[in-house]
């Protein structure tokens, strides 16, 4: 009895720093951010309550609206493309190809690069006067045009390309682990039944890999919410405000533009959106757990 009490105390003591960090840094700072969004703070924080005026300004702000649109486009395309390309890469590697280790490393390599490096590389590749378009034209394809990055209506898709290029390798690694976990007996059974391979993947393997897909999707989604550096490095939000994203809106207004009130209102809106998406999912998960 005494021993277990002791171990409980030591467990609590061990957890205390983490608990304090969580209370002060996460909860405390979040609360402060929400409070700031209700004040008219500019460069320095103040406590002049102005109600929801910052939110009114925020939703009347073109740049914020564009940022929200962009993050939705980016989020949907990035997660779905990275998942499907990553999965296909994993399937390709799973065909017992030669030099599997090397290929695996090559696919995973982009992930070891930061978004800033990724962004710069792709900025150069996509630049019409330096990159792919230039190379194609110099090879004699005079009419070749690939200028998405300098056109406002397509710039956000360039961020998707770079993001997918960087993240697909990671998805591949997760998927490959999932594929290797599939029992060999299942493959044998399908062969006995004479099922075509694609059918096995679609109807049997994919449903079995729910956990791998969930892991990859969660990892990718967190990357979507905090998307900032890619936009800064690749287009700096441009041309115009065409590839702005919410996190960049917050950072720019917090520092460069000395507008703490508006920046925290944007940050709070991001938080509420994430909670609105995640909360039902967690609720569903816990309910499912109870039912078991």
């Amino acid at each position, binding site marked *: 009895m005494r021993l277990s009490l002791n171990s409980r105390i030591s467990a609590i003591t061990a957890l205390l720093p983490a608990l304090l960090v969580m209370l002060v840094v996460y909860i405390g700072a979040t609360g402060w951010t929400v409070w700031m969004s209700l004040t008219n703070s*500019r*460069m*320095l924080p103040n406590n002049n309550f102005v109600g929801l005026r910052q939110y009114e*300004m925020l939703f009347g*702000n*073109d*740049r914020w609206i564009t940022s929200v649109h962009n993050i939705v486009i980016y989020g949907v395309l990035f997660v779905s493309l990275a998942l499907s390309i990553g999965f296909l890469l994993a399937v390709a590697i799973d065909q017992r190809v030669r030099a599997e280790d090397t290929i695996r490393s090559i696919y995973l390599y982009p992930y070891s690069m930061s978004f800033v490096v990724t962004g710069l590389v792709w*900025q150069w590749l996509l*630049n*019409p*006067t*330096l990159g792919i378009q230039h190379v194609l034209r110099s090879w004699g394809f005079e009419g070749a045009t690939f*200028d998405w*990055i*300098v056109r*406002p209506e397509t710039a956000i898709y360039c961020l998707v390309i770079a993001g997918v290029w960087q993240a697909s390798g990671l998805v591949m690694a997760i998927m490959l682990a999932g594929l290797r976990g599939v029992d060999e007996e299942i493959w044998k059974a399908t062969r006995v039944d004479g099922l075509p391979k694609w059918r096995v993947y679609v109807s049997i393997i994919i449903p079995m890999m729910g956990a791998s897909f969930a892991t990859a999707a969660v990892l990718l989604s967190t990357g979507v919410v905090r998307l900032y550096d890619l936009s800064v490095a*690749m*287009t*700096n*939000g*441009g*041309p*115009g*405000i*065409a590839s702005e994203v919410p996190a960049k809106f917050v950072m*720019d*207004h917090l*520092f*460069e*533009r*000395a*507008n703490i009130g*508006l920046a925290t209102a944007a940050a709070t809106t991001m938080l509420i959106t994430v909670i609105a998406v995640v909360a039902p999912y967690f609720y569903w998960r816990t309910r499912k757990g109870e039912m078991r």
Partner: protein
Amino acid sequence: MKRTLFASVAIVAAACVSVPVSAEEMKAEVIHWWTSGGEAAAVRVFADQFTKAGGTWIDSAVAGAANARNAAISRTVAGNPPTAMQLNTGKQFDELVEGGLLADVDAVATEGNWKGVMPAAITAAATRNGKMYAVPINIHGQNWLWYNKAVLASVGADEPKTWNDAITILDKLKAEGKVIPLAFSGQKNWEQNLFNSVLIGVGGAQMWTGILGKRDASLARSAEFKAVAVTYKKLKDYVDAGAPGRNWNDATNLVIQGKAGMQIMGDWAKGEFIAAGKIADKDYGCTVLSNGSGGYVMGGDVFVFPKAKDPSVTKAQMTLARLMLTPETQIQFALKKGSIPVRSDVDTSALDACAQKGMRYVADKAQQMPSGDMLAPPAMIGALQDAISQYWNTNMSADEFSAKVAAVLKSQE
């Protein structure tokens, strides 16, 4: 053995700690963002002067203007301020003064007769509630036109004086089709800088102060403002497809290499010409486009001094303030930095042709225009920047744009 090691560590530690205790010593920890070659050499001028005066200069360079400002301001608010910090001439320290966090330099300013030797717009930008709170140290002209003399000569053009002249030349260059007429770096702040140059050059002084200073929303809806907007948008016909996202110095290099005709950029672009071994007025020319009512847009840098309890720190601050503005320091600094001195009474013979031209503009009261940063808070400049950038990059009409600008000005009330 262990004991001796411990003792020696203790002695060293004690020695380190004891340095700041001595009351007479002047120490100055200065936060600034001058990290590139020429800039670092310029700030060394201040450091050397301060060392000569018996002080110790502790250099805290932080790369990136916004980063440096954040670091300095957070430390000041948290009660652990640096001795001095760099800001841009303008509204950036308004709230620090309101919060009573800055020491004024009025005594040093009166003693040195700063108001007598500096342009009024600059002293006004450093003064709050009748007292000077900042030391302006240089003037950067923001709306210079840089052009490649050989390229302009190839179409038989002389130096343009107005935007109309410039557009005639741009048309010729475009028709010729050999070079990019206007070198441009399509990033938000440069889109804004180009717009500002048109605002002052086509709209004139009244328009400039009316929009940025008085924030007159009805002026933004006027036909004159729309004319500014139309001229600005017309410039887009003269830039190349690679412009979006390009860095300003890459655009300058297009002019240097003769691949482009001209560029609108602040006088920091001169550093690129100098680095490429080009000579002012021979290889490249510089001018300021205006409609006759004047308009040299003056920005620059200041140093401010957070209030200190320790009198030795205050002494160091006031010594720094005095030293930064001596004619000798001013000219040395300007030579390294590429800016022009903030004092009009220094010997300018050592400066190059473009800097001397700048000095002549600054000496003329009618030409002195305070920069946007001096007239408006960062939040408003930022909101305008978004509007300008949208206008430049989409097919928004001049009417929509002027409505947008009017809305920004209105929200500032």
